[in-house]
């Protein structure tokens, strides 16, 4: 029962309280780039969720079963980035084979998931927080993906409405998006006291 509790608390905490986008500033580039339309944002979120779950699990396994016992921590970053690149390649091949239309609409953004800092960032945070069992690592990675999807979808919804409003000329585009993100981050701070 205790493990289930820890897992649920961990999941909620990474989705709401330690949301990667709003509190750790990870994944800002796709967040600004793809949040123009809500269906694209959702697709992107799903792809990121898949890659982050896969690579979070794999990096935890490799880190704990190969690198640490053999004292190869120095090569950690190189290994992590190779795993992520591999996972992205896998997703790309899969999507191209089974969902060609989705593949077309993603274009360049699919391979760019490799350089999405949310993914490498999460792998590093799992390592930093000293997560010591596989199940927790899987749940945290999945939660991080869901948190990212939620953030990018909220933003896409707001931006679709923003198109209709009168924004000062110099703030159009990225600046107003950043300011909106700031206000959203302020709103998400309200969750901070929820756990512990």
């Amino acid at each position, binding site marked *: 029962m205790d493990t289930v509790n820890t897992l649920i608390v961990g999941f909620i905490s990474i989705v709401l309280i330690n949301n990667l986008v709003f509190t750790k500033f990870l994944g800002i580039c796709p967040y600004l780039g793809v949040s123009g339309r809500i269906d694209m944002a959702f697709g992107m979120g799903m792809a990121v969720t898949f890659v982050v779950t896969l690579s979070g699990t794999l990096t935890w396994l490799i880190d704990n079963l190969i690198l640490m016992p053999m004292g190869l921590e120095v090569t950690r970053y190189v290994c992590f*980035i190779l795993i992520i*690149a591999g996972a992205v390649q896998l997703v790309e091949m899969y999507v191209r084979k089974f969902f060609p239309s989705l593949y077309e609409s993603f274009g360049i953004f699919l391979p760019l998931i490799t350089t999405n800092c949310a993914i490498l960032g999460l792998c590093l945070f799992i390592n930093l927080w000293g997560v010591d069992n596989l199940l927790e690592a899987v749940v945290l990675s999945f939660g991080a993906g869901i948190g990212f999807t939620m953030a990018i979808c909220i933003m896409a919804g707001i931006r679709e409405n923003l198109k209709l409003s009168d924004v000062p000329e110099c703030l159009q585009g990225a600046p107003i998006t950043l300011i909106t993100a700031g206000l959203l981050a302020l709103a998400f701070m309200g969750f901070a006291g929820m756990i512990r």
Partner: protein
Amino acid sequence: MTNDTGLKAGVYKETLLRGLWRENPVFRLLLGMCPTLAVTVAVKPALTMGLSVIFVLLCSNIVVSIIRKLLKPHLRILMFTVTIATFVTIADLFLKAYVPRMSEMLGPYVPLIIVNCIIICRAEACASKSSLGVSIIDAAGMGVGFTLTLCVLAGIREILSTGAVFEVAILSLQSQGGWFVPLAAMSMPVGAFITLGLLLGLVNTITKRKTKG
């Protein structure tokens, strides 16, 4: 001969200035936003981050430029990331050894330099196509431009959240009998997003004025 060197110097100067303002990585290209937002609580971590990025950018541009003729198109990005990851590991170990407190404060944002889009972008757009000299100058310009931007943003946030710049008190705080009430929000994520948004707006205005006048 003299004409040729003159031409070369012109190219170098142009490349250097491009990184500083016209194609400033943060303000104009919107690259490397994550570290920009995360480490700019105060000037000191921002400067450390900027210097690490300059180091990694210089080294990876040099290596990529040297091996540019050997690169296979489909393995290109992979080669870039592995090169960058190697130099980031060096920078990370260096920071851990010589400035452990700063390294702890920056935490995972040092290894996150690997996925900083500026570095891959420069490797792809410049170093894999141009000679060693141009690549080095380009890295220097882009790196310094990035560092300066970080410092400006960090300076604004630090002075508004603590009344100090580089940990040297400038405004007299109300708690010590002065007039300035620190804005706690500036040291939080909110402050980062909004300050950067407004700065981008300011840069947009300035550029528009310039092109008009």
